[in-house]
């Protein structure tokens, strides 16, 4: 992989994430701040504005996957009645809890996951988070509060926005009973402003991949996305992404492509396969192929955020995400991205345990091929459960797609 090319930022990221987890650990142990657990879809801005230290179990799931610790932990959750067919972030995280294990110790030097005072989820990117958090609500005897987003929307209506904005306002009232003080509207505005700023910088970073050859890969983005997930709404995320954009622009000036001799450009659709990032990165590099963009990383670009209209814009940001949209929207979006990033083909990752972030199950690749001449192939695997993955089959699929595109160029 290419961490060494973004060495300054990679080094900063280590420190930043270590500080973040140690602050959470300190808050949990000293009770100096209330701890909220939150889903990656938010509403982190409201929690941050109310002074909560915010922890993201999904990030823990990804870390367990990336460190290849997940698969045996999933079995522990399976044994407790959590099916192997449900989200493997969920099963690996709950398995880790049941086994009193965590990836945070080795990664960030903390003793364990921070104990929550409240659990807050949003269903816009995943419907299983409610059941995930209800497990911890029972374990820790703390409230689990949800925002229920209308799903698979075609056009976002005023009623949809009013519905979710209303839920967010109600949520703030419920949270004030945990935090002990009401939400300060000015602090929320400032948090949304910072969140928007970080999101714009993240977008800028991702869009450098529109250049040909690209200075970054999807694998770089999966490494550097942690702050936009766990720290948006704070100054640190803005500072981090400002520096990352600068370092990436320096790369462009120096003429260093992410993949030497780039001749193929792919799009990754669906969840990362966290335990196989290295395998895929090496595979693409050997083929002189660059995965230039992904639905996953682009899902943290929230252009709707508006500090003058915080609740409504937070509602819009949550509702507009790709995964919450209908098939027609997804077709148009993928066709647009394919054009904008000059992509040769899409690789659809069919994640066995993540139907919500898998887009191969309703004929989308076939429609893109038939109606828009966009080539694609399907990789079978999972985000964390390596039992669902075959290196050999995946290698053949990627190589066959590369051969197909290269042969097509000669005709």
């Amino acid at each position, binding site marked *: 992989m290419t961490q060494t090319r973004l060495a300054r930022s990679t080094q900063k990221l280590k420190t930043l994430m270590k500080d973040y987890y140690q602050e959470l650990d300190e808050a949990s142990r000293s009770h100096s701040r209330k701890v909220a657990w939150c889903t990656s879809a938010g509403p982190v801005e409201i929690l941050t504005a109310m002074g909560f230290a915010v922890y993201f179990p999904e990030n823990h799931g990804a870390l367990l996957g990336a460190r290849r610790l997940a698969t045996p932990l999933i079995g522990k959750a399976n044994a407790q009645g959590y099916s192997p067919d449900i989200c493997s972030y969920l099963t690996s995280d709950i398995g880790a809890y049941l086994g009193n294990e965590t990836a945070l110790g080795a990664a960030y030097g903390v003793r364990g996951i921070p104990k929550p005072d409240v659990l807050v989820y949003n269903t816009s990117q995943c419907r299983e988070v409610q059941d995930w958090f209800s497990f911890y609500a029972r374990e820790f005897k703390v409230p689990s509060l949800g925002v229920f987003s209308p799903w698979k929307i075609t056009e976002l209506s005023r009623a949809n926005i009013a519905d979710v904005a209303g839920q967010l306002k109600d949520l703030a009232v419920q949270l004030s009973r945990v935090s002990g003080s009401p939400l300060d509207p000015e602090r929320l505005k400032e948090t949304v402003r910072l969140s928007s700023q970080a999101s714009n910088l993240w977008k800028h970073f991702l869009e450098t991949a529109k250049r040909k050859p690209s200075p970054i890969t999807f694998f770089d983005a999966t490494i550097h996305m942690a702050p936009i997930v766990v720290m948006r709404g704070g100054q640190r995320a803005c500072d981090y992404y400002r520096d990352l954009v600068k370092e990436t622009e320096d790369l462009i000036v120096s003429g260093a492509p992410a993949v030497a001799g780039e001749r193929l450009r792919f799009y990754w659709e669906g969840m990362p396969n966290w335990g196989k990032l290295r395998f895929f990165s090496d595979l693409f590099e050997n083929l002189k192929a660059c995965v230039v963009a992904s639905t996953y990383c682009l899902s943290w670009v929230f252009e709707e955020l508006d500090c003058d209209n915080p609740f409504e814009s937070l509602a819009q940001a949550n509702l507009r995400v790709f995964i919450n949209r209908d098939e027609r929207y997804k077709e148009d979006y993928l066709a647009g991205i394919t054009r904008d990033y000059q992509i040769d083909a899409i690789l659809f990752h069919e994640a066995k345990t993540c139907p919500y972030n898998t887009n191969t199950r309703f004929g989308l690749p076939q429609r893109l091929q038939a109606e828009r001449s966009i080539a694609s192939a*399907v990789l079978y695997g999972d985000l964390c459960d390596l039992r669902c993955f075959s290196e050999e089959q995946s290698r053949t699929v990627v190589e066959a797609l590369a051969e*197909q595109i*290269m*042969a097509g160029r000669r005709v």
Partner: protein
Amino acid sequence: MGIFAGVDIGSSYTKAVLINQAKKVLSSCVLNTGADFERVSKRAVSKVISQAKVSAVSSIPIFSTGVGRNLCPKANPMTEISCLARGSFHYLGRAHVVVDIGGQDNKVVAVGAAGSQVSFKMNRKCAAGTGAFLEEIARRLDIPLKKMESMARHSPDKVDIGSYCTVFTCTEIVHHIREGKKAPAILRGCYESVVKRILEMDPLEGEIVLAGGVIANHPIVTEIFQEKLGRSPFVPDGPQLLGALGAALMSLENSYVRT
């Protein structure tokens, strides 16, 4: 005249084909793959060279394919998918869909009118509907693999196998045995399930070419395809050799070298 080789190192069998510049097949062989991909690929190449009685062995260009394609010495590796497309287009010369039923995986490749590969599909990480599935059923019923076909062909009836998992199919078979069903009827049902798994992968529109070891060794599968599709699929000479032939043709054309 130049000589060109293609080697397909599959999960169960390794196939090699030697052709000349006129694309005529000079020799071919099928060997058990075993555990040493490099060794078996060398043996396969030696064997076809020896059979064809050609000289200047060291200069023969080789393209390799199959799961062991990267371990064949002095060869340019290409995926089975590209090689199947190339091999089947050699026979048909027009747009079609090639279906390969191999030892551990199935492939469906759409080939365009000019011979280019348009799209492809592979089975999931599951060997249901492959050669490994039939081997497991033979083992489960304690029937020699070679006898399976004739038993199924002469069965007056068949059982319905609904599972899309080899292990679940074995459970289903236990149920059918308990119900008094005879082995030939169960075997016929298993062959039908191989075809069903393929039809679940792709609608198989247009002309169909069938390839792979299962097609080579179990002709009943082609007949079931014909019944289900309502038309005759094309089966090339030596359907198991189609990938190796495609590799040999690529070797001749050297149309795309992945370097």
